[in-house]
């Protein structure tokens, strides 16, 4: 066993950012469990046998080179994978112990519980900022006691309230890219998901906006399960409790290693993980 972490700067970040939650210790509920996920596009197998557990109250970062199936994997977690023609999958995804792919499951309910933030900010162009935040209520035909309270709460949790409280009736498209992405986060929060999937939410943003979103993630993590795909190792180290490393050697993507973030960045068990997090390839 090495005495010195292989990537000292990253592991410092990962250790210093917060006290690590131990597996299970932060768990407030059962969470989300992926069991033996395989995914295909047409005949092409792009994911092989991914099993990963996500505890309630933790942030899990998924890292790995482009094209190794990270997006495909998280899209199987809220049944967005089936949206693509020719897509197929095998395996189980248990949400609070219940398989979301079970016959007869109401898929819209699943997507309410497992929200998603996309890589490119995508506020609804025909709607104002306020309408964007509350769009999920309309789409899913949910009732709420007090819309204004919900609106403020969601924007507050997404770290956007102070910037937009005076122009809630402006169009979402009038915000900057970083603000738009936080608007999209607020929009996902309005339907009170238990899990939030974020697919490279900061890859189109400037460093300042990225920082704001990371703060938002920290903030949210105590009350939900967050799964974030990122290409930014620093970001993974800063925001996540656990990190999973995906890799494809030209064939289907596989989960090479998963563990507490500090361990992945300090003493990875697999040489491929070590090469990736030290920037020797990928």
């Amino acid at each position, binding site marked *: 066993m090495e005495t010195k972490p292989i990537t000292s700067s990253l592991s410092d970040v990962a250790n210093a950012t917060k006290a690590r939650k131990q597996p299970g210790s932060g768990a407030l509920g059962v969470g989300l469990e992926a069991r033996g996920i395989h995914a295909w596009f047409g005949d092409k197998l792009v994911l092989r046998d991914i099993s990963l557990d996500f505890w309630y109250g933790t942030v899990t970062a998924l890292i790995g080179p482009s094209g190794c199936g990270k997006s495909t994997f998280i899209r199987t977690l*809220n049944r*967005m994978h089936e*949206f693509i*023609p020719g897509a197929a999958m095998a395996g189980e995804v248990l949400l609070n112990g219940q398989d979301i792919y079970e016959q007869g499951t109401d898929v*819209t*309910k699943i*997507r*309410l519980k497992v*929200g*998603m933030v*996309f890589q*490119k900010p*995508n506020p*609804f*162009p*025909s*709607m104002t900022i306020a309408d964007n935040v509350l*769009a*999920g209520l*309309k*789409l*899913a*035909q*949910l009732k709420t006691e007090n819309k204004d309270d919900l609106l403020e709460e969601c924007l507050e949790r997404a770290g956007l309230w102070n910037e937009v409280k005076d122009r809630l009736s402006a*169009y979402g*498209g009038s915000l900057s890219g970083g603000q738009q992405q936080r608007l*999209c986060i607020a*929009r*996902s929060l309005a*339907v009170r998901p238990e899990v939030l999937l974020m697919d490279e939410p900061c890859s189109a943003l400037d460093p300042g906006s990225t920082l704001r979103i990371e703060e938002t993630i920290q903030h949210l993590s105590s009350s939900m399960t967050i799964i974030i795909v990122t290409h930014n190792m620093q970001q993974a180290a800063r925001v996540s409790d656990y990190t999973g490393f995906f890799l494809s050697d030209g064939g289907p993507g596989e989960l090479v290693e998963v563990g507490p973030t500090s361990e992945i960045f300090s003493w990875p068990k697999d040489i491929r993980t070590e090469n990736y997090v030290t920037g020797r390839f990928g």
Partner: protein
Amino acid sequence: MSNLTLKPTKPWKRTPKQQLLIAVNLLVAAAISFVIVLVTPMKGKLAYLLLFFISTIIVNFAENYFKSGIAPAKDSIATSFVTAGLIIAVVPIFSILFTIFERGRAGLNFNLFSHDMKSNGPNDPLGQGGLLHALVGSGIMVGIALLISLPIGILTAIYLTEIKGIFSRPIKFLVQAMSGVPSIVAGLFILSAVVFPITKSSSGLMGGLALSILMIPTIARTSEEVLLLIPSDLREAGVALGGTQWRTISLIVVPAAKSGLITAIILGLARVAGETAPLILVSGGGDAVNPNPFHSPMGSLPFYIWKGFTFGTTESIARSWAGIFVLLSIIFILFIAARTLSGSEEKK
């Protein structure tokens, strides 16, 4: 304010000197063509134009060659051809508009919009009678066509772009084929499928049905293109928020495409507003205002125009030109409305 000597400039624009040079080039070319017409047997306006075009190319080529080299000189030939093409395309359009205004002017008066022709013949003095019946008839029939085509056209487009069901390919093929159907065929179809077997008489409703056959493919195809432009991100975001596909389409996709869909509708209206052949077949024509689309023939602007020309007297032909002017103005306004709507969306 701090630097008064700094003036905003546009270095990418032509300087006045360069503009002058272009004018000089054109003058030289004109002079050359004039001399050639003088000294050779070539005569006439066409010879002038052709020679002017050729000498412009040569003069521009020479100027660019000596100033900047062979590549810009070659480029100038292409520019000359494109400019000539533009002029050839635009001149007839303006000449048509000018002709219509010129001919239609005599028949234009306020009575047109307040009177019909029930107590006047086409041969009466131009101030008497009007085309109110035609305007009302066109309005009603185009309105009926719109009521039928709007839901069918947009739902077809939604089926093709959003649902993408197993019938997408045949429907797409059908819509494309339908948009090529000659208008008289639409009229004949309604005539043989509805008028002869069922109603046995022409009426505004039959006219509206025939027009809707022409309108549906226009609206469906334009709407399809508009919906295809909506990024799939938005659909995914709607579904990811717990919306069903239908709620996502109606709350997110269609509102996002709203101005484009309105453009599609306006283009559909403009497409059928001037259709003559099917109306002659199935709605007949009348000289009195007939607001009832279910009973008795109904006049229309194209029919009014056609009738005036077939009557063939000076007055009746002047009436037709006035009718053309009114019809074209309406279509023009529709197109401008469509342009403005889609333009204002691009700015957003």
